[in-house]
C-alpha cells in the first residue's frame, strides 16, 4: 500500500516571501501521479499542481512549483511571492497509474501573514 507523509503540520510565512512544503511517499510502483491540493476555510478542495512520475521536468503553475525527486520519493511544493489568499490546508496526494484513487497525506496548514 502507498503512504504519503507530510512532516510539517503547520507552516507560517509572510506575504511576498517564499515557502516550501514537504511531502514524501512510499511506493513500489514505477508509474504514478502526484498532486498538491489546497483546501481553504471554505473547504473546497482545489487542485494546485500535478506531476507525472515519468516526467523528469518539474511541474510549474504560476507561483507554484514542485521539486520532484523520484529516487528519494520526495515531492515538495514551493510557493513564491506568497499571498494572503494562499492561507489554507495543503494536501499532498499519490495515485497509482490506472487506479484513479488518491491517497492523501495528513496535510500542512499554511498561514500567510501580512
Amino acid at each position: 500500500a502507498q503512504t504519503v507523509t507530510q512532516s510539517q503540520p503547520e507552516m507560517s510565512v509572510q506575504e511576498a516571501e517564499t515557502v516550501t512544503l514537504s511531502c514524501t511517499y512510499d511506493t513500489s510502483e514505477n508509474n504514478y501521479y502526484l498532486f498538491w491540493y489546497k483546501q481553504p476555510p471554505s473547504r473546497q478542495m482545489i487542485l494546485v499542481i500535478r506531476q507525472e512520475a515519468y516526467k523528469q521536468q518539474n511541474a510549474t503553475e504560476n507561483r507554484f512549483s514542485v521539486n520532484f525527486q523520484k529516487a528519494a520519493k520526495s515531492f515538495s511544493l514551493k510557493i513564491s511571492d506568497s499571498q494572503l489568499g494562499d492561507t489554507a490546508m495543503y494536501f499532498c496526494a499519490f495515485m497509482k497509474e490506472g487506479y484513479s484513487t488518491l491517497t492523501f497525506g495528513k496535510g500542512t496548514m499554511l498561514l500567510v501573514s501580512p
Partner: protein
Amino acid sequence: SAVISQKPSRDICQRGTSLTIQCQVDSQVTMMFWYRQQPGQSLTLIATANQGSEATYESGFVIDKFPISRPNLTFSTLTVSNMSPEDSSIYLCSAGTEYYGYTFGSGTRLTVV
C-alpha cells in the same frame, strides 16, 4: 477539468435518520469517488462509484451504512444511513481523469445530534 456541484452544503440531522448527498458533474466521467474528512483530518476514500455496477467500498466502509447510486455518467448519490454522532464529518465527491487531475465538490458538512 470537471466541475462538480454538490448538495446540500451542510445539514444537521437527528441520530438514527439518513441523509442523501448528491453530486452532479458537468461532463461524463467513468468513475466518481466519495471521501470523508473528519474534523481536522485528511481525506479518506469511502468508495468508488461505477456507472452500471455496484460501488467498490474501501476497508471499514459497508454498503448498508453508505449506499451509493450511480444512475448515469454525470450523477451520483451517497446516503449516510442510521446516523450517529460519529458520522459527523465533511463528505466530498470527486471526479476526473489521471491526465487532467481530479476535482472535488464543495463538500457537505454533516452534524449529527
